[in-house]
């Protein structure tokens, strides 16, 4: 049973990523705020009720401190909870004659379970100071510096739009990482074939490429399902998607080219040259071009923020890199089965 350790480590890493990828809950967050429309207020006291919609929150267990705040303006609410997901906060907004006419307030809640949760630009106030002569006071800012209280236990970050689908990072993205690794190995073996002329090198290259194409197809389909839930379309004209469509077509052409040639040596030589030519083009299409393009929905390309800077967090990293290694090992295992089978047919 020698030579099995890497196969089992791949399976264990995949099981680890799959289990925790589904088991770990999302961190509580404010998903939305009601009554966020413009409110016209007079100077003096006015009462405003704000509905705060929580995601995975436990409002019934705590009495959060709710604050509307912008720069030095700060209002503290008397909070009333309706349920775990909805928190009603009543604010007495006291505006002085000198306060700004338009005020965009950020909402911040704090309690011992959730720590700080923030929702920017929750409330837009329009103030008409001419109506009244009442002088308001501005409450002093109780939250001077933001101290993040870590939520107990293992949690994934909440991202609006992504929500629970942030887990797909562990399933969709490793397909592309392992695909590129497999294609790199394939290109290296194609180069080795051109130097050595050994048919064995050619069959290794073709075995890796066909599994890489499988990973690419799975990556495209899973990406499409993910896009339906988050970007509201199965397919968009994102530069990464178009690049991948062309790149996959080039590699499908590689497989068809191989299948259409009968002479083993001619097939091996042509395929090796084609493979070495296609690999840099593929990398340019799916990595370089999206990065250079002006607009992109994918993180880390075009105008969007890099995934590791914004969407990733350390909890996701704990499972993302093992998932990449696990998928790569599984695909190498699958490729090796195909290569061994090809070797058996070549012997005859």
């Amino acid at each position, binding site marked *: 049973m020698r030579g099995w350790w890497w196969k089992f480590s791949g399976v264990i890493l995949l099981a680890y990523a799959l289990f925790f990828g589904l088991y770990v809950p999302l961190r509580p967050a404010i998903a939305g705020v009601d009554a966020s429309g413009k409110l016209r207020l007079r100077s003096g006291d006015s009462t405003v009720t704000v509905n705060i919609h929580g995601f995975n929150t436990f409002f019934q267990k705590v009495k959060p401190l709710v604050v509307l705040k912008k720069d030095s303006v700060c209002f503290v609410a008397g909070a009333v909870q309706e349920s775990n997901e909805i928190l009603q906060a009543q604010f007495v907004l006291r505006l002085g004659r000198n306060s700004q006419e338009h005020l965009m307030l950020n909402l911040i809640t704090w309690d011992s379970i959730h720590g700080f949760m923030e929702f920017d630009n929750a409330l837009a106030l329009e103030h008409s100071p001419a109506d009244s002569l009442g002088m308001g006071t501005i409450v002093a800012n109780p939250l001077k510096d933001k101290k993040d209280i870590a939520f107990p236990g293992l949690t994934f970050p909440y991202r609006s739009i992504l929500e629970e689908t942030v887990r797909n990072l562990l399933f969709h993205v490793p397909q592309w990482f392992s695909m590129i690794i497999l294609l790199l190995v394939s290109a290296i073996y194609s180069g080795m074939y051109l130097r050595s002329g050994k048919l064995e090198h050619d069959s290794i290259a073709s075995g890796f490429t066909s599994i890489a194409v499988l990973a690419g197809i799975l990556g495209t389909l899973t990406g499409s399902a993910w896009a339906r839930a988050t970007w509201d379309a199965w397919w968009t004209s994102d530069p990464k998607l178009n690049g991948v469509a062309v790149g996959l077509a080039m590699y499908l052409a590689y497989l068809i080219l191989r299948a259409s040639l009968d002479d083993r040596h001619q097939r091996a030589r042509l395929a090796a040259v084609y493979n070495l030519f296609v690999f840099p083009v593929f990398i340019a299409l799916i990595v370089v071009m999206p990065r250079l393009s002006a607009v992109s929905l994918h993180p880390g390309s075009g105008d969007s923020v890099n995934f590791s800077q914004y969407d990733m967090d350390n909890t996701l990293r704990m499972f993302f890199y093992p998932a990449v290694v696990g998928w790569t090992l599984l695909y190498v295992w699958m490729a090796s089965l195909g290569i061994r089978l090809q070797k058996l*047919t070549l012997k005859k």
Partner: protein
Amino acid sequence: MNSGFNHIMRKIMLSTLLFLGFGGMLKASDAAQMLRANGKNNAVIAVLAIIFTGLIVWMVRLDRKVSRMEQEQKKTGPQS
């Protein structure tokens, strides 16, 4: 062949146990146990189903290739 199979099974059992151990290690907080399912869970399920289907389709193709080879060997007789 049989002992080899047993060996694999033993390894699988061992890794399953290890894997279950990981679950125990996670100190699930009160909050974690009360995970409420909402927010686009379907997309996660769809992604996993697609990957699972892809792997099964690949397995079926490999199986068919192997059976084709077996049939050819039956016709020509064992080579080695």
